């Protein structure tokens, strides 16, 4: 039963991967590299050994967290795109607090940085939520513009108040060792951070929140038909605001994870590295299913990590990975359009009044 329900989505995911691989092969051939060599280098670089697999999985965590934020906000009907800004805000807040937490015992310091990240991201998202709820500013516009603000603030922070004293580089001082999130000691290079447990835990939390709580129910009703929700006594504004805050919290936690479970123990101004928008792609590729987003987050992370590996071993430009990610996003949108067309051909005595016009909002039943 479960399998039959999810089979189409699995097929879509596999189909997208296969077509993306074909496109990659063509590009590789054009740049004079045998696809077979590239594949083996890609595999070696992503899952070939424990160290690289650890990197791939660890880098999937921020992507998934952003994707979960998108899923919650989208379910409430709030399409905001402020994830890059919220990742930066969360990371910067976690950094500011983490740098001063050297004296705390490890577990507490880790918890404090995580909570600081959540708070920072939620506060930044709060601006968007407040503008939407009280002033009627479209959340998609305000969040997009606040991304630009966040990027500049981060650039100022690492050159100003948070700049490390040791060098003149635009980056903060090294984080106190106790605040670094622990990693699995058995993996050489310590690349597998313990925060990978967040992958299943957060996905399940989001599933339960949406399907098993009164709050999540109200959220879905607000997202499905805000006016009906209002007439039925569910406040769609309250739901929308909380959904934006939650999504900001997830993005902020992603920012903290990028820094404190990342490769470099300091914050520089480019640390966000596209995670905010790639997280949206992760959610879309998973058809807005929290559980499938785990899989697609790992796929996206592998594309990133593998792209770097290809550059190192075969001198393939690392922008190939970005081309592939772009191709995947386009293919996913195409698949969504095709799936919708197929649904529309099915008999529908009453065309659903709320037929969504955006492929972006395609949702699954939790």
């Amino acid at each position, binding site marked *: 039963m479960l399998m039959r329900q999810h089979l189409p989505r699995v097929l879509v995911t596999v189909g997208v991967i296969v077509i993306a691989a074909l496109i990659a092969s063509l590009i590789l051939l054009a740049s004079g590299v045998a696809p077979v060599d590239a594949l083996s280098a890609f595999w070696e670089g992503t899952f070939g050994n424990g160290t690289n697999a650890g990197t791939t999985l660890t880098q999937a965590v921020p992507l998934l967290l952003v994707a979960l934020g998108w899923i919650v906000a989208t379910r409430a009907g709030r399409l905001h795109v402020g994830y890059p800004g919220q990742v930066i805000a969360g990371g910067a807040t976690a950094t500011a607090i983490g740098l001063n937490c050297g004296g705390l015992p490890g577990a507490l310091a880790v918890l404090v940085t995580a909570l600081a990240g959540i708070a920072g991201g939620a506060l930044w998202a709060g601006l968007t939520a407040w503008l939407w709820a009280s002033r009627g500013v479209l959340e998609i516009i305000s969040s997009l513009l606040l991304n630009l603000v966040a990027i500049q603030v981060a650039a100022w922070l690492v050159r100003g108040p948070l700049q490390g004293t040791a060098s003149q580089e635009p980056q903060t001082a090294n984080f106190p060792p106790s605040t670094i999130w622990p990693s699995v000691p058995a993996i050489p290079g310590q690349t597998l951070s313990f925060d990978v447990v967040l992958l299943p835990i957060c996905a399940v939390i989001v599933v339960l929140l949406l399907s*098993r709580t*009164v*709050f999540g129910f109200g959220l879905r009703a607000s997202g499905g038909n805000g006016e009906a929700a209002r*007439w039925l*006594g569910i406040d769609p504004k309250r739901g929308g605001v909380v959904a934006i805050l939650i999504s900001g919290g997830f993005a902020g936690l992603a920012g903290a994870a990028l820094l404190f479970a990342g490769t470099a123990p300091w914050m520089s101004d480019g640390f966000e590295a596209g995670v905010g928008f790639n997280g949206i792609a992760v959610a879309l590729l998973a058809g807005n299913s929290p559980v499938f987003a785990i899989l697609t987050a790992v796929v996206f992370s592998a594309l990133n990590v593998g792209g770097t590996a290809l550059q190192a071993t075969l001198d393939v430009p690392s922008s190939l990975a970005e081309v592939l990610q772009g191709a995947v996003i386009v293919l996913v949108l195409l698949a969504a359009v095709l799936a919708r067309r197929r649904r529309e051909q099915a008999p529908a005595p009453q065309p*659903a*009044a709320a037929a969504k016009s955006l492929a972006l909002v395609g*949702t699954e039943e939790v």
Partner: protein
Amino acid sequence: MANRAQTPALRLSGVTKRFGAFTANERVDLDINRGEIHALLGENGAGKTTLMRIVTGLYQPDEGEVRMDGETIRFRKPEHALRAGIGMVHQHFTLVPTLTELQNLAMRPARIPWSNATADVRRRSEEIAATTGLRINPDRMVADASIGERQRLEIVKLLCRGARILIFDEPSAALSPGEWDELAALMRRLAAEGHAIVLISHKLTEVFAVADRYTVLRAGAVVGTGLVTEVTPDELVTMMVGGPVMERPARAHVNPGRPVLTVRGLGVARDPLDPKSPPALSGIDLQVRAGEILGIAGVAGSGQNELVEAVMGIRPALRGRIELDGKPFEDRTPRRFYQSGGALIPEDRHHVAIVSGMTLWENITMRALRRPPLSRRGILNPSAARGEARRLMAEFDIRADTEKIPIGRLSGGNQQKAVLAREFSGHPALLIAVQPVRGLDVRATDFVYRQLSEHRARGGAILLISMDLDEILALSDRIAVLAHGRIQGVVEAEDATRTRIGALMTSAEEAPCS
């Protein structure tokens, strides 16, 4: 002309349309002649809409053919049908409210993309006004036009584009009795000029008032066709439902009890954000008692929506007091309205009563879900909720294979039954029902009326708001007439006649709105 009269304007023969395993139309034969009004009857889901979508080019038939003036036609998209002269007046208007009436008329694919059609359309609309008497108000925003005026604009739009076959999909659903009479006269005039008119309707009184011929569809197939003069209403109903519908039970006498809803001196501004805008309602005094149905009669746009929204707390009131179930009801919100014992069957089901993407059970339990026993401390109990939904599906005769189907896939009648199930399941003291049978077929209408009567018999209070005077007269114990935002009078059911109510509706045309 004589030759034309013999060839039907539109002839469907053996038209079949399937969606997967489901056959929406099966070998339908239909002739529509010029100069006649042809009524197309059938229950919800009988295949009327699918058939008309084939005629207007939205769907292509799987089998059979469509001939227009004897020539086989095959439209690939609605634009082709319009060009050929087939136009449909939809139940939900296809107008842009933020443009003027003239701009709406001019909005069409032009042969020369940069040509300005406005002057041309203005001339055409004046020609139409001269021949049919259909006058529009070219420079008015569509948003400021009433429902009847919008419908008129839709018709002018089709005529402007040269439509000779006009299909009306339940045109009276939104109209007041007076507006309907006007439309009926217009349809006859159009037919007399040689247009072919198809009238899709549930209301037999309308069919007998204007139509020349009828065709009844049941389960996708034609079950009867003929001249309206040679058939009785009972025969038509039997054809539509496949068996006689039970008589509505005579209204049992119920002694009205305590007041359940009391409204005193309610005033509401037309623009909710601007208290200084002209009033939509002023000095409204109403009382609905337990075991009584208070009907609100009035033409559309007399302040009905504002009244419902103010009582619900969707729209702020300028002044006035409201008491609900014996307690003052201030700081109104929809949530408090329901908590205080209110329930609502709104007019605009798709917009405000259901979330079509969510399942049937979620829609049925949408309000109960937020209280024990279906949820505790914010955690839902989905299996209990589904069980409750299944119980209500049986009780309210909601036909669906499973409670997990998205409610948007159900027919309009079943959706309305689901709304009824949800609203009655909370045992409300007061039910506000606005046009509760709009767009429903005979059987579903009968069901809704029965439920309303039973609620009244159980001692519930009902505020019934409808533009259909027959509905108000048939169900209400007392009738308040609303016109221009004021209550023009309250009439006991025994004393109420169409003329008396109609007189009250129009009596205070010049009522000063202070």
